């Protein structure tokens, strides 16, 4: 009897079951197919294209030196200033939207829409479903990110030729790391709820408002470094595109009697650590929650 690739000898009678890794691949494959057929993938793609279109129009209309000025005192390469303006200002927003669109209801939807009933009763581990769906969301998000990066680089090549600064490659790598952490987080929240709209709403509020607000309050009012907030860790994406990497610095309050303070800037090792810890912690928690959750 011939053996299918990726199958194990876990048998009952004459049945050969694929390995869990192979089953993860199957879930990922059909999850991506599902995304490609869904409206949300194209809506996210359209949002990315609209943002790119606005930037393209701004640069074309006002001129690249006006939109992304490179002053001789602070800027050594105009190309870096361009990528900082374009990529540094917008990519975290695109990543957060990807997380909300693809991760917000990835697990809760299985309960609310009852699609989980079709999958879970099959001979595969729940962790295979979770990981497969997560990988599907990651690949779909990376495709959106790649298209967005392609448009950014396309404009960069048009204005500056093949002079793509290495910092952009670093920033792109950090963006993917941030995407991984965001998807880990959104999947965790998706496992927490059984209602799709609730999980999407909570993750959207957290990423679009709450984290930024908490970071602002903690850093400016409480005056402690917000190392425990994921969006603070994502600061490395924009910081690495600056001519001189920003550092944490004391500041003097304006005018007499003004309060002294500190402006916090996340370092690259700190940022990587924050994003990794967020991903690992939320991935484990989300997986445990999904394993324990009941289809009642």
């Amino acid at each position, binding site marked *: 009897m*011939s053996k*299918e690739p990726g*199958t194990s000898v*876990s*048998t*009952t*009678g004459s*049945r*050969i*079951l*694929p390995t*869990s890794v*192979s*089953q993860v691949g*199957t*879930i990922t*494959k*059909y999850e991506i*197919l*599902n995304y490609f*057929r*869904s409206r949300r993938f194209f809506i996210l793609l359209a949002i990315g294209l609209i943002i790119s279109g606005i930037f393209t129009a701004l640069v074309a209309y006002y001129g690249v030196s006006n939109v992304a000025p490179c002053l001789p005192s602070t800027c050594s390469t105009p190309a870096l200033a361009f990528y900082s303006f374009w990529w540094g200002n917008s990519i975290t927003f695109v990543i957060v939207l990807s997380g909300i669109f693809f991760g917000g209801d990835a697990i809760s939807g299985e309960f609310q*829409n*009852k*699609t*989980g*009933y*079709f*999958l*879970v*009763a*099959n*001979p*595969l*581990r*729940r962790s295979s479903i979770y990981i497969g769906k997560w990988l599907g969301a990651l690949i779909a998000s990376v495709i959106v990110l790649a298209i967005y990066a392609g448009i950014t680089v396309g404009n960069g090549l048009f204005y500056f030729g093949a002079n793509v600064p290495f910092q952009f490659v670093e920033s792109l790598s950090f963006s993917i790391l941030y995407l991984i952490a965001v998807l880990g987080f959104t999947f965790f929240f998706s496992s927490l709820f059984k209602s799709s709209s609730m999980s999407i709403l909570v993750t959207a509020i957290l990423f679009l408002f709450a984290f930024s607000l908490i970071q602002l309050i903690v850093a400016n009012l409480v005056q402690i470094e917000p190392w425990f907030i994921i969006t603070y860790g994502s600061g490395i994406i924009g910081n690495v595109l600056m001519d001189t990497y920003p550092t944490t610095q004391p500041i003097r309050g304006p005018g007499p009697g003004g309060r002294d303070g500190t402006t916090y800037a996340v370092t690259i090792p700190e940022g990587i650590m924050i994003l990794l810890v967020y991903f690992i912690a939320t991935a484990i928690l989300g997986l445990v929650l999904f394993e*324990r959750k*009941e*289809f*009642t």
Partner: protein
Amino acid sequence: MSGPSIEAVNLSKRYGSFLALSNLSLKIEGSKCVGFLGPNGAGKTTTLKIFTDMIRASEGKALINGIDVHVDKRKALSSVGSLIESPEIYPSLTPREALSMVSEIRGLPRAEKRKKIEDVVSEVKMEEWLDKKVGKFSKGMKQRINIASALLSDPDVFLLDEPTTGLDPRGMAEVRDIVKSLKTRNRLIFMSSHLLNEVQDICDEVAMIDHGKLLVYDSLSNVTRRASSDGGNIVEIELSREIDQQTVNNDIASLANVSVVERPDPKRIRIHFSGGIQNQEKLLLDLASMKIGMISFHPSTSALEDTYLKLIKDTL
């Protein structure tokens, strides 16, 4: 190798203070169809969900072919086709894609996959819809695809939760025929249903549950006999021509083991008789030899209904 089996060992499920399933112990072995009956909230779906790892038992074990579902889910469910609570399929997928996904999860050889999918879709009469998106399907059409999914890997054990839900009368009849054909292929079918005539038509044995407790598990004829006031069985006979009261009173009522004969209408009689399956066989032969125009002979549906109502009432 022994036949397929499912076994609930002291299975209990609590939701807070509510006991949905209480110490259920039930062992079903061999190729047969067992109807799982009980009122709403009795614990039927809870039991089936535990067997398919959709929920976890608070206590006890759920074994399929001797394998604990919660210890080795992959192995236990590799020989199970299930249909629990009308699942939804990703609306953007076609039946071919959805069934491909299931066949890949279950490790169907690639060479057989395409034909197997077409075969099961044909069995549920959905060939025309094989490449249309599921999102456009009616509830009944989705249910047919779910049944096709359960059949796909040709499993030994079928766990079906009200499989005819959402189907039109023709669809219901087709599903019954599918289940009947499974019995001839040495499969074990454990099927919950509210439809007593469906269970009567398809199943060999009946398990009744209420308030999470098993009330009875026995063959259909033994179960119906329990509720009968004279401890006997009831069969219903349909006739092609009218029968007069005199023949009923004199000829049929005097047959061996017959206690009561009712004539609800001129072309139908109900016979109460004592004894087991041998006496039922003898009665059938006797009636056939009388040449009264008998066109059907089957255990009374109302007998099962009477039993059901009596047992459920007793637990109130």
